[in-house]
């Protein structure tokens, strides 16, 4: 009897632990959503197929969880074994019962009054590993919570928030470590990617995204400009367990819009980094926008994809960049294989055969305002794309709009915005948006569905033949993943600035999204 109980307990505990192996094989348990992008390859694809293009019209809201905060909800919920872990602005975590939507515990983080964020006190989600929940905070701490109680297991200071450092990204749990990026690209920080021992919180490694004197890449910064070089890392990357490499995007160089003080390519701003997961050593980098003067952060989610490229089997990365180009890279060596615009852009003539953009000569912000496409918010932004193995299509929520770019003074003061200019929307031309389906290796447009406004929400594709997305006007909607035909929508009443997920609760497929200041969960009637 005792043995039996012991075994039952052991099974229960084993099941309850979110092991690295479980995350590594996330595709084999589509009933849970174990990591920010659904799996390490960042496909944001659900193998669940109960909700289909045939029956999606019967999708109904099941419950809503309201968030009592001033800033919008940008969180991607994680779900494991019947519990949903949600972050709330500014840096709180709540565990919800997926059946009822009722809170089981909550972690409230009192943050200092003087935190500095360019764009709201937001948080994009947690990571899970073992029996811990990890959350980054707007005052630049990384905190591990007990998954059953929400109590703090460890709390480390990642950086000084008074100099404009903040954490808004969801961490990524890899093996026995938690990897986290830093925000502060508008404050002249020196960016980095960090890894911490998941059990103790001890720093395992740090990769600085801006080199110092004596390191390779320093020659890409004039004078002392590297000191305020930014290259923040504010969105969650992806991971290849076979290569043991983490792929992580970096943000704009500082100051954003005035490049005069930082002549050179400004490495590793606007890059994709390939980092050894054990040591944080740089394996390779690919810079999308050298010497960026348009705030073209490459903090989008890198999608890993194994497929045929021009006749041979390759390990690839698919990347829809904020600079309006779509890239296919070899993820073993960072080699550029293919690129083309997926949204309107007027700043570059083309990409050369190494993938380096050929900018329109002399193009840079002016005091009067330079008009270019895309808008500073980009052809896309931090919100997630999706890859569907079912359709073999890459989906991206594209933004079609232009902007005016102004150049201004750039005096660095610790903790103050360090933009060197600014932006405006084009007067009388708000632009529009589109969900686009691209052939993954060529970037060719297969279909698109136009949206009234440039969107701020990511997409989820499913084995049921659907693509879920959200828009500024509050609709959460489903399109047919093969044709783009609109099949279903629901008005949430709040702007959607987040990413959808899918999971099972009581054996039924659910879809969830943060909208406005709430989490919405949907299931079939």
């Amino acid at each position, binding site marked *: 009897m005792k043995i039996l109980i012991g075994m039952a307990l052991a099974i229960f505990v084993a099941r309850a632990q979110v092991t690295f192996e479980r995350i590594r094989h996330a595709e084999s348990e589509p009933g849970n959503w174990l990591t920010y992008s659904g799996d390490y390859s960042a496909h944001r694809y659900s193998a669940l197929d109960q909700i289909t293009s045939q029956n999606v019209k019967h999708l109904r809201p099941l419950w809503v969880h309201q968030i009592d*905060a001033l800033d919008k909800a940008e969180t991607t919920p994680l779900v494991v074994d019947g519990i949903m872990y949600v972050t709330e602005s500014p840096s709180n975590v709540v565990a919800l019962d997926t059946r009822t939507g009722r809170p089981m515990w909550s972690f409230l983080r009192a943050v200092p009054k003087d935190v500095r964020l360019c764009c709201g006190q937001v948080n994009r989600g947690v990571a899970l590993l073992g029996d811990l929940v990890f959350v980054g905070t707007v005052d630049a701490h990384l905190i591990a919570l007990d998954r059953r109680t929400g109590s703090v297991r460890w709390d480390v200071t990642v950086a000084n928030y008074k100099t404009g450092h903040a954490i808004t990204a969801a961490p990524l749990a890899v093996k026995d470590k938690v990897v986290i990026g830093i925000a502060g690209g508008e404050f002249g920080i020196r960016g980095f990617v960090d890894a911490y021992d998941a059990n103790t919180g001890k720093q395992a490694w740090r990769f600085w995204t801006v080199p110092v004197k004596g390191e390779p890449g320093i020659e890409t910064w004039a004078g002392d400009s590297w000191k305020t070089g930014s290259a923040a890392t504010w969105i969650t990357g992806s991971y290849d367990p076979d290569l043991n490499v983490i792929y992580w995007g970096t943000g704009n160089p500082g100051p954003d819009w005035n490049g005069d003080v930082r002549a050179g390519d400004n490495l590793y701003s606007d890059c994709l980094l390939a980092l050894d997961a054990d040591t944080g050593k740089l394996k390779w980098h690919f810079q999308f926008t050298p010497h960026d003067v348009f705030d073209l952060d490459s903090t989008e989610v890198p999608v890993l994809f194994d497929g045929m490229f021009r006749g041979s089997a390759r390990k690839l990365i698919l990347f829809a960049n904020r600079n309006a180009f779509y890239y296919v890279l070899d993820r073993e060596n960072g080699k550029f294989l293919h690129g083309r615009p997926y949204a309107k852009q007027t700043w570059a003539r083309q990409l050369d055969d190494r993938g380096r953009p050929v900018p329109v000569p002399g193009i840079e912000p002016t005091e009067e305002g330079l008009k270019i496409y895309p808008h500073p918010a980009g052809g896309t932004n931090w919100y997630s794309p999706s890859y569907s193995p079912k359709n073999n299509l890459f989906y991206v929520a594209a933004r079609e709009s232009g902007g005016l770019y102004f150049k201004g003074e750039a005096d660095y003061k610790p903790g103050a915005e360090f933009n060197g200019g600014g932006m405006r929307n084009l007067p009388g031309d708000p632009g529009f948006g589109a969900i686009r389906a691209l052939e993954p290796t060529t970037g060719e447009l297969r279909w698109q569905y136009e949206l009234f406004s440039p969107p701020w929400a990511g997409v989820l594709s499913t084995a049921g033949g659907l693509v879920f997305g959200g828009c500024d006007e509050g609709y959460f909607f489903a399109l047919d993943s093969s044709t783009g035909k609109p099949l279903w929508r629901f008005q949430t009443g709040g702007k959607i600035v987040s990413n959808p997920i899918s999971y099972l609760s009581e054996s039924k497929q659910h879809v969830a999204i943060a909208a406005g200041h709430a989490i919405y969960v949907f299931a079939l009637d």
Partner: protein
Amino acid sequence: MPASPTLSFLPLLLPLWLFQAEPTSEIPKQNPHASAADVERGARLFRTNCGVCHGPAGNGGRGANLAQPSLRRASNDQALFLVIRQGIPGTEMPPGWWVLDDHEMWQVAAYVRSLGRVPPENVHGDAQAGERLFRTTGCIGCHQVALEGGNLGPSLTDIGSRRGVSYLRAVLLDPASSLPEDFLQVQAVTSDGKRITGIRLNEDTWSIQLRDLSGHLLSFWKDDLASLEKQPGRSPMPSYRGRLSDQELDHVVAYLVSLRGDR
């Protein structure tokens, strides 16, 4: 029986943000950058960043006339700085921090204050005569002032603090010449052939909301319409060119300028 643990003791709804209001205490009450050199630099920044709406010399256009001794939303330097930095939510006035750093915004504020010391634009007309014309020529049928009037056009209760003289004159002569930024006239044709002209109130990918010329609020799924035509650059407001004499125009403009939203 389903377990129903009492969770109400959890401080889930503690409004943390209440303690996180803008730390205005750190913003100086008096402009720390108001030297002659600051005003000069502020003027340059103003021309490039604000002139597009407030006119290159600040005496109004699409945006408010700033060349006045006191500003409605900016009674002191700190308030002026905050208006410039945060913009005015819900209006066309954008946040200045998108473009300028704190130092530059103080310089712009110094320039804006200096404008108040130049005499405001001359208005020739007689505001009282203007008010009579406003009531007799039909303006009031479309525009509300204080609590009275129609609602096809925007309320003019505080138009004098929002728009400058040149803009107001241009609207009366050629209403379509300077439409408010989000103003759009549309024509919808329903599937049964009804033709509706109205002003767009809201729109999204799938639906549109409008107010027709008789003031009815209407909402349509776009799929249900036979056609939807947007008519940018068109306005239901008639031109008063030739319908009002030059002198009458001056009176009406003087009246509009006097409408400052005072209650």
